[in-house]
């Protein structure tokens, strides 16, 4: 029914999908699995015609629906082709009722006004809508008064409303689900699977993306494994082999130089107790963790489970609750200013959005935080707020950093926006160093950085730790990097600490830990 042929997609310089091909028959439930960043969501977005795809240069490759070559360039086209999607962040309108949401853009109308004014200006038939909605929900085994507002119903119910909206569509040929069971309980998930089986029996093809491998294995007819944008495995029932699939997902890579083991200090530098951070998309719900003096601690886990929220939370970027202790002393009202003064610095994952002043020169970026927080580089000692800065000193220091970190640039006056990703990250590190922090928290340090610069940055981290005794906390989705340089790796699952693994654990252990399915061997 659906044939994907050599689908490729790049976002700028990064190629996210590399010539992916797969087939889907009518009524087939097809699972799509792979690690973070392997391209699953991008594939779904292309099939759905998400505006982001068109806005970033479209895709290459062919999509054949029922043998006919189709180009899906907007959700409108997708809908017309009978493609529906259950989004991870629901596409529900909170202020409207369940029925209105389920029937949006396809409402039943009064036949009289249909004839008089045409479909668009025809009066909505409220009872008809309600009946349709309740019927769709019944198929899913959910009974719910359809005139409740979506803002008032539970999260798991919202999931079912989202699904009901798609199955109410008459010509639904393909239904795509992106992590549908993430918010569902065990029994709700079973209900969902039942409904999907029923749907597939009626001829709708289903594309099911999930991290819950056991689920995928029990539900799907066929499974495709993606890694780094390529198809690395295709499986059909009954030949599923979980262990091999996991290996395919994580891949076996040549391990580069590891850190030399050293005597580990047991002193706690930073203690985090029951931390809740409300960062949209990455919520922490009660994390408790100790960061030991002088260590390099890795934070790993699936995206959305909270590993990227610790840094922003501590720096006051989002509302938080819980307790944070530095050297035994509790920090009340943690925020950027206090943390910086106490020697804690944070490098955000989105360099261009929050890590650099893109329109400013390299040298201005490097000295900014130090100048603001410590008053370094000031010309005058009194009236700090209005003091001009010592340009000569700044230039000297910046040039020093450029040389030390091998920052490839025309001059220290070059705009940060013109540097490559790796060099930008080096500027960020130099900026953090200028305040001589005791604890450096980094999110996704090598995202968007080329292979060569990656190694240099990792080396820099090792150097800082070794020579300056700096404690580092690195949150990253690149597991192999964490394994190479960290002393311990904490796995964050569903907003809490799942367990702390040693860096020499097997990849498959990590993969299972990420889904909350790993059990520590006694």
């Amino acid at each position: 029914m659906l044939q994907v042929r050599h689908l490729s997609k790049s976002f700028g310089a990064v190629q996210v999908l590399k010539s992916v091909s797969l087939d889907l028959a009518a009524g087939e439930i097809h699972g799509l699995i792979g690690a973070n960043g392997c391209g699953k969501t991008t594939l779904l977005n292309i099939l759905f015609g998400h505006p982001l795809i068109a806005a970033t240069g479209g895709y290459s490759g062919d999509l054949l629906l029922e043998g006919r070559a189709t180009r899906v360039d907007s959700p409108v086209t997708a809908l017309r082709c009978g493609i529906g999607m259950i989004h991870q962040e629901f596409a529900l309108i909170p202020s409207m009722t369940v029925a209105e949401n389920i029937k949006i853009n396809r409402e039943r109308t009064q036949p009289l006004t249909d004839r008089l004014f045409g479909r668009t200006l025809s009066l909505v038939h409220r009872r008809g809508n309600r009946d349709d909605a309740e019927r769709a929900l019944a198929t899913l085994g959910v009974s719910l008064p359809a005139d409740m507002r979506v803002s008032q119903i539970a999260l798991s119910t919202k999931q079912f409303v989202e699904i009901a909206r798609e199955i109410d569509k008459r010509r639904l040929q393909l239904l795509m689900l992106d992590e549908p069971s993430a918010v569902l309980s065990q029994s709700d998930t079973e209900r969902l699977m039942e409904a999907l089986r029923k749907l597939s029996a009626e001829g709708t093809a289903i594309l099911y993306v999930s991290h819950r491998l056991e689920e995928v294995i029990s539900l799907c007819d066929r499974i495709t494994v993606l890694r780094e944008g390529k198809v690395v495995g295709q499986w059909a029932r009954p030949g599923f082999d979980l262990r091999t699939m996991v290996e395919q997902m994580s891949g076996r890579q040549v391990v580069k130089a590891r850190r030399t083991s050293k005597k580990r200090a047991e002193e706690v530098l930073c203690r985090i107790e029951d931390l809740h951070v409300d960062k949209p998309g990455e919520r922490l719900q009660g994390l408790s963790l100790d960061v030991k003096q002088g260590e390099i601690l890795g934070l790993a886990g699936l995206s959305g489970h909270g590993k990227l929220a610790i840094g922003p939370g501590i720096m006051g970027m989002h509302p938080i609750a819980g307790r944070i202790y530095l050297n035994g002393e509790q920090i009340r009202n943690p925020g950027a200013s206090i943390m910086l003064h106490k020697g804690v610095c944070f490098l955000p994952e989105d360099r261009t959005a929050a890590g650099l002043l893109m329109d400013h020169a390299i040298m201005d970026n490097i000295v900014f935080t130090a100048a603001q927080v410590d008053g370094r580089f000031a010309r005058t000692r009194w009236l700090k707020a209005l003091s001009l800065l010592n340009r000569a000193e700044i230039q000297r220091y910046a040039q020093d950093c450029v040389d030390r970190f091998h920052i490839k640039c025309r001059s220290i006056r070059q705009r940060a926006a013109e540097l490559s990703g790796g060099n930008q990250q080096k500027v960020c590190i130099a900026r953090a160093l200028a305040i001589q922090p005791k604890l450096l928290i980094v999110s996704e340090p090598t995202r968007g950085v080329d292979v060569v610069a990656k190694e240099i940055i990792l080396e820099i981290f090792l150097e800082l730790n070794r020579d300056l005794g700096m404690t580092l906390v690195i949150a990253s989705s690149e597991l192999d990097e964490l394994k190479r340089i960290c002393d311990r790796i904490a796995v964050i699952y569903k907003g809490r600490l799942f367990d702390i693994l040693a860096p020499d654990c097997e990849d498959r252990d990590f993969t299972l830990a990420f889904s909350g399915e790993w059990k520590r061997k006694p």
Partner: protein
Amino acid sequence: MPRFNIVPVVFGMLSVLGIYFSGMSIKFVLNELIVRFIRDGVMVLALIIPVTAGMGLNFAIVVGAMCAQVGLILAVDYQLYGVTGLLIITGVGGVFALIFGLLIGICLNRVKGKEMIATIIIGFLATSLYQLVFMAGYGTVITPHNAEMMLSRGIGIRNMIDLEHFRNVMDNLWMIDPGGIQIPVFMVLLVLLFALAVKYILSTRLGQLLRAVGESSDKAVLLGIDADRVRIIAITISTLFACFGQIIYSQNIGMLNVYTAHLNSDIFSCAALLAGGATIYQAKVHHALIGIVLFHTLFIVSPQAGQNVFQNPALGEYFRTFVAYGTIAFALMMNIQQENRRSYPERP
């Protein structure tokens, strides 16, 4: 859950105080109110649909008003009076309103998030263009057919055009007179008809689309809705209604202040809508209807109240100007703050 809105209550209290201090009779106030309800009703109704579509207050309804005035001037120019004249004005004005509504809609789609400030500037721009055409265009590039409406120097239209020929076409139809209060029933029904039209639109499929786009343009796109097109439709309808509203206004007053009649129509209409309890994110028909009563009562009694309390009617006028702008400022403050709290809870 609709939050309790204190604004209508405040307006209610101010109106009561105002009536008391002005010493005006209820009968007088009611008569004035009915007249203003007819004159300004449709203008206020024109604001509802853009608010529903998430575009905020449409200050560019002045453009719709100017379209109506273009129609009126053309009618006077070609000396088309009576019912025919009125129909032609409606037609011509309507066509202009559709065209300009479309243009404004296209503009606003490029300034998402800053629609309100854009509509204010568009309003100013349109006013300048309009003034250019009628102050410098007529007599130079455009040849007038009716010398009576031109300035003595031959270029430019007079400041004021008499609309006596249109005045009694529909104004006094079905006039009833209960206890000294004059109610032109036809006109009142006409305004209510427009109110019904707005209510109708909001209960159609289009209405659902408007609400979806108004809540979240991005989600609407994911649901397969052409959000940009819906927004253009919203502004076009708004401009059209504004045009009709201005026609009703002008023929009711009986004369046209060519260069100033449309000025401030946007401010007062927005203030009236907000006075009735609407927010910049949600507006219903009853907000408009209640708001006109509340706002205009205050408007009517302020100068006299100022005279009685401070011996200076100007103070009463300043008060009501402050109320008009202040209501909008206050609504903006409250609504934007609420919206920020909702979508950016992480902002310190």
